């Protein structure tokens, strides 16, 4: 009844059929990019230096796949696991009440962030020059022995040749993991500091120990801040395994591709193969990171919980709106 009256009084206006704004600039850009793309494809296809058939033939050979699995993927996983665990420890040291622990934590992050990874790996690769054997026992035993008049006192429990333990893989792993721990420590520290101080206070008031309040209250909440940059670190780590060439670690993707290239005098195709392999591997991680960030970006905890909360907020606001409309 009422709506009919309204339509008779005020006719529905005609739908808008305006002339859209033209964007000639966009078309020019598209044309330029199309030409550039065509040139690029042309080079890829016609330039003999790419030697595609050779590259495809070599890039899936067993030594290369083994290098990819062990030196790149496995190394990334293990270095990140150690890096994260040690990083949490260093972060907690840096936030400790104990000034000595704080200083040690600071010194650690300072050193491992100040030395470039490449240089660090070169140093770890040659650390066998420092000690031929690594042994565990009473420190300064020979010096202490001399103090008490005993010649060449040796109080060693066990040891091994540094050539055995600091093989390429171990030296490389140590270099990457220790360096990663320094970066992770900064990320974890920022995450811990992002948690509201009231949380610590409430936990302390309940009689929780420092360890308990970190493990049960602070770290779970810090995760939201820690997870996304840790994804970035993992991708960076995967790429940085290529630096293991300088340790050297032979069972590794880039080392193997580089070796094939140098042996066959077909360096460029093998470097292109390296690009393609790293593009492939990091793309997989990027997909993983997308889902992780979507998961942790939405308020607290699992996405379902956040969605539920959004729904209750929406319901409250909807209810309020109706209330005012009714008045």
């Amino acid at each position: 009844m009422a709506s009919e009256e309204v339509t008779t009084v005020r006719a529905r206006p005609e739908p808008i059929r305006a002339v859209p704004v033209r964007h000639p600039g966009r078309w020019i850009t598209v044309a330029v990019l199309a030409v550039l793309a065509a040139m690029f494809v042309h080079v890829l296809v016609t330039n003999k230096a790419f030697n595609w058939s050779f590259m495809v033939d070599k890039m899936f050979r067993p030594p290369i796949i083994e290098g990819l699995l062990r030196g790149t993927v496995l190394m990334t996983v293990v270095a990140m696991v150690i890096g994260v665990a040690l990083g949490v420890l260093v972060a907690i040291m840096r936030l400790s009440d104990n000034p000595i622990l704080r200083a040690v934590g600071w010194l650690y992050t300072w050193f491992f962030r100040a030395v470039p990874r490449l240089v660090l790996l070169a140093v770890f690769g040659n650390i066998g020059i420092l000690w031929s054997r690594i042994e565990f026992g009473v420190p300064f035993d020979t010096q202490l022995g001399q103090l008490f008049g005993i010649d060449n006192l040796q109080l060693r429990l066990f040891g091994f040749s540094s050539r055995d333990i600091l093989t390429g893989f171990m030296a490389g792993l140590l270099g990457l993991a220790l360096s990663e721990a320094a970066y992770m420590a900064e990320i974890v520290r920022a995450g811990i500091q992002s948690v509201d101080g009231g949380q610590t206070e409430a936990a302390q008031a309940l009689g929780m120990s420092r360890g308990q309040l970190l493990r049960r209250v602070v770290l779970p909440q810090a995760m939201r801040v820690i997870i996304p940059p840790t994804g970035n670190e993992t991708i960076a780590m995967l790429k940085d395994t290529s630096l293991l060439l300088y340790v050297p670690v032979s069972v590794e993707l880039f080392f193997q591709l580089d070796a094939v290239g140098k042996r066959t005098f077909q360096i460029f195709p093998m470097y292109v193969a390296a690009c393609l392999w790293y593009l492939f591997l990091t793309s997989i991680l990027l997909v993983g990171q997308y889902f992780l960030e979507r998961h942790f970006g939405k308020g607290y905890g699992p996405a379902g919980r956040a969605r539920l909360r959004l729904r209750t907020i929406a319901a409250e606001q909807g209810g309020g709106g109706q209330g005012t409309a009714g008045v």
Partner: protein
Amino acid sequence: MSELTVPAQAGAPAAESGLMVQAEQVHKSFGHLEVLKGIDLEVRSGEVCCLLGPSGSGKSTFLRCINHLEKINAGRIRVDGELIGYREHGGKLHELRQKEVAAQRRSIGMVFQRFNLFPHMTALENVIEAPVRVKRESKAEARERAEALLARVGLGDKMGNYPGQLSGGQQQRVAIARALAMQPKLMLFDEPTSALDPELVGEVLDVMKDLARDGMTMIVVTHEIGFAREVGDSLVFMDGGVVVEQGNPREVIANPQHDRTKAFLAKVL
């Protein structure tokens, strides 16, 4: 001689003196800012003590000193006869270890203005956490008591909800249940209703009144004069880091002696 025979805590336990909290000449400074300038306060077992005072007068700081969230610079605080934060031995004070301080805090519950619930745990998990982790109770036992406590504060149907899904009043009631789960002998409330919408204040005060009727010893920092008058056994008015006036709440509110108390009450009434 006496050093050997006298127990570590010089004060008599509450059972004998009837005193749950004894604060003597408590001083506290932050850098050069002296926030508490010699607070003397006694709270008997089973008593509800309401702490009033303008913002910045040191009420929160004093409350936090009682469970050693803040270290005091001078004076003594005893809870149930036990010196808080220190051990007195051979005429000297020795700082307690973190572990020992944590043990003292277990028997002192605290409720905060901004609830400070753990947002990644459900209401039930919030209440179970400390009994299981700190007191090493069995999960089943802690859960049973937590359910009873949540039912008591009127949240029997919200146990699985996360704090983000609860109203302010509901969150504060969970926070009270969480503190009670440790079976404390003293409860500290720091403006428990100040962050709440007016229509939610009543539900929290009701829980606190219920607790007071059960004989819980409570120190309540509040601006709710009605609550102080109805439930309080004593009222302490603080200003500028000192106790200005104290006494029976109904008498102090009806007939304040001190100008500063009068001015303050005129504003909040």
